[in-house]
């Protein structure tokens, strides 16, 4: 990233998305923002705060309370040449729209043999750690990554949130944009004149030699804490922020694992059939002779997301990840 005449501002992740949406609405008249309560309220997390005021009800659209309708009409708007960015209010409420996403949004481009594009972004605040009630803390990314035709991304910090949203909106493919809701209030520098990395490329956020930690979205920050703690014990962990779940940047993971020879994948979603499974399977295939230990996974359990008072037990935390690191290093 160029360091000259930088226009960098410190802002929270939610605000970075807000600024990114604002820029998109400003520069492309075809961009629309749609969803429940995105207008005057600015969304329950205020991510769309002020946008309706500035761009009008025709561009920033409060929709009826029906997720299938939101995505289904966004598909129609995309067919008409618009670029809708739709908000699903919480992770657990994307399922009424799942049919439209899987059978229509994901397949329309292929079905038309490339004649129609589907530049639709589906924003989903996801993950736990905010003490919410049921359906407000889930991480369903694997359910989208398995579906061809979709792209699935998740930023971990304000700068990525800003730029990945720009790129998602510019993409002619549907992008499921998972926003780490418990990091909405975390601040970071955003340089709105930077040249961003490609959307689907992973980033080494910390170099290390003993073991690779792979994460995305809310778990990247945790992994940094883990690496700090491990460093105190003399262990050098490399951290890869995947940023994209579909496609997965296996090349970057492979490069890191060929160096460290050990891999631990961390996500909030249940381990069973989660991203970690795919990463473990493919990296083991690619790095069979490099791995000193099996790829270990730290994630949610195979149980419905628990009530808030138990979520700290359910979610990967410092100790659980360190435990996996130790187990890996013990091989």
């Amino acid at each position, binding site marked *: 990233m160029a360091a000259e005449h930088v226009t960098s501002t410190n802002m929270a992740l939610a605000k970075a998305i807000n600024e990114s949406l604002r820029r998109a609405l400003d520069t492309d008249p075809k961009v629309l923002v749609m969803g*429940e*309560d995105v*207008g*005057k*309220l*600015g969304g*329950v997390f205020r991510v769309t705060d002020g946008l309706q005021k500035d761009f009008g*009800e025709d561009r920033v659209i*409060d*929709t*009826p*309370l*029906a997720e*299938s*309708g939101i995505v289904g009409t966004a598909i129609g708007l995309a067919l008409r040449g618009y670029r809708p960015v739709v908000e699903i209010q919480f992770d*657990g*409420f994307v*399922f*009424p729209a799942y049919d439209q996403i899987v059978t229509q949004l994901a397949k329309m481009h292929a079905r038309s043999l490339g004649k129609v594009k589907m530049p639709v972004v589906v924003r989903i605040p996801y993950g736990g750690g905010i*003490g*919410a*009630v*049921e*359906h407000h803390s889930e991480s369903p990314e694997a359910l989208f990554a398995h579906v061809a035709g979709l792209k699935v991304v998740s930023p971990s910090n304000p700068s990525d949130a800003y730029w990945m949203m720009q790129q998602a909106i510019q993409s002619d493919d549907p992008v499921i944009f998972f926003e780490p809701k418990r990091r909405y209030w975390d601040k970071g520098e955003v340089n709105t004149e930077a040249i961003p990395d490609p959307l689907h490329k992973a980033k080494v956020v910390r170099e290390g030699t003993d073991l690779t930690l792979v994460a995305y979205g809310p778990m990247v920050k945790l992994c940094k804490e883990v690496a700090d703690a491990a460093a105190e014990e003399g262990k050098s962990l490399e951290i890869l922020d995947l940023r994209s779940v579909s496609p997965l940047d296996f090349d970057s993971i492979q490069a890191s694992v060929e160096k460290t020879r050990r891999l631990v994948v961390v996500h909030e979603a249940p381990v*069973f059939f989660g991203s970690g499974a795919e990463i473990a399977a493919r990296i083991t295939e690619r790095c069979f002779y490099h791995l000193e230990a099996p790829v270990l996974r730290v994630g949610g*359990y*195979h*149980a*419905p997301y*628990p*009530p*808030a*008072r*138990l979520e700290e*037990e*359910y979610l990967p*935390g*410092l*100790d*659980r990840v360190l*435990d996996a690191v130790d187990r890996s290093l013990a091989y």
Partner: protein
Amino acid sequence: MTVESTAARKPRRSAGTRKSPSTKPELVQLLTPEGKRVKNAEYDKYVADITPEELRGLYRDMVLTRRFDAEATSLQRQGELGLWASLLGQEAAQIGSGRALRDDDYVFPTYREHGVAWCRGVDPTNLLGMFRGVNNGGWDPNGNNFHLYTIVIGSQTLHATGYAMGVAKDGADSAVIAYFGDGASSQGDVAESFTFSAVYNAPVVFFCQNNQWAISEPTERQTRVPLYQRAQGFGFPGVRVDGNDVLASLAVTKWALERARSGEGPTLVEAYTYRMGAHTTSDDPSKYRADEEREAWEAKDPILRLRRYLEASNHADEGFFAELETESEALGRRVREAVRAMPDPDRFALFEHAYADGHALVDEERAEFAAYQASFTDGEGA
């Protein structure tokens, strides 16, 4: 081919400003906001034999429900609850419909039916578990024929319909009532529940509390005609009742339940009411609605209305109101204490109840979790 013509179209009316093509919808009302009893040829008979004691009972229900609700709101502010969804303003719709039910009827609530829960005899503190974050549903649905709160908007209307289909199969003459909001009316599931219940002639009452708002969206974002009219296109009647009138809510629900019991199938009741508070304790209504609106609705307060009637008709004396005040305070205290004493669940509860018949992976994960916990010297985790 590209679309070129851009002329000729009349300027579109922005949605929400569009007026209903029909005339002003009929609103069933038995008590005016001033507490005057008005006659209604169709529905009077459902409350004809109501006693002063029962009227005081309705009043007591509403007052205690409001007291409980206020206590919950303040417990949330004190950090004892993570969230609270207040029913403030909707007491009459809930108590009126709730008291219309028979014990063997079955209720499918949203997350706001604290007043109905009260009528069913669900201990109010049980409602608080999910809002405190100690469980995702803390009572036995079959204990009081009151299903768990459902958060995914509209889902429960299909459960109610299926349950009602089962009631019909059993040859029972009980009825089922499904609560939902004005926002929920847009969900496909609600429409499908209308279709299924009509086709199978299921004994279910759809009770829509139109409290004018779905979080920040006014009802005009969901429909351009009054919601009760939705039913006729599915082949069953819909009626709009003054949801701030407990007597009317009671009468209309009784009528609808009777229809269900006697094999007439589903009915839609739209209770026209108002969410006087925020959507939940996380919400800030000042972002999207004017104070004056709330003030206008305060004049129609459901509790005040019945109190005026009780006083004017001499159905209740000072002693009653004073006693109720005491009872109210006691309820608040009891709830407060019960919530504060509510223990956090054991960490192993994570793995419980995921399955009824067990699942090998859950067993494996539980064992790993136990070993992990045991690995800490303090035996307590970090």
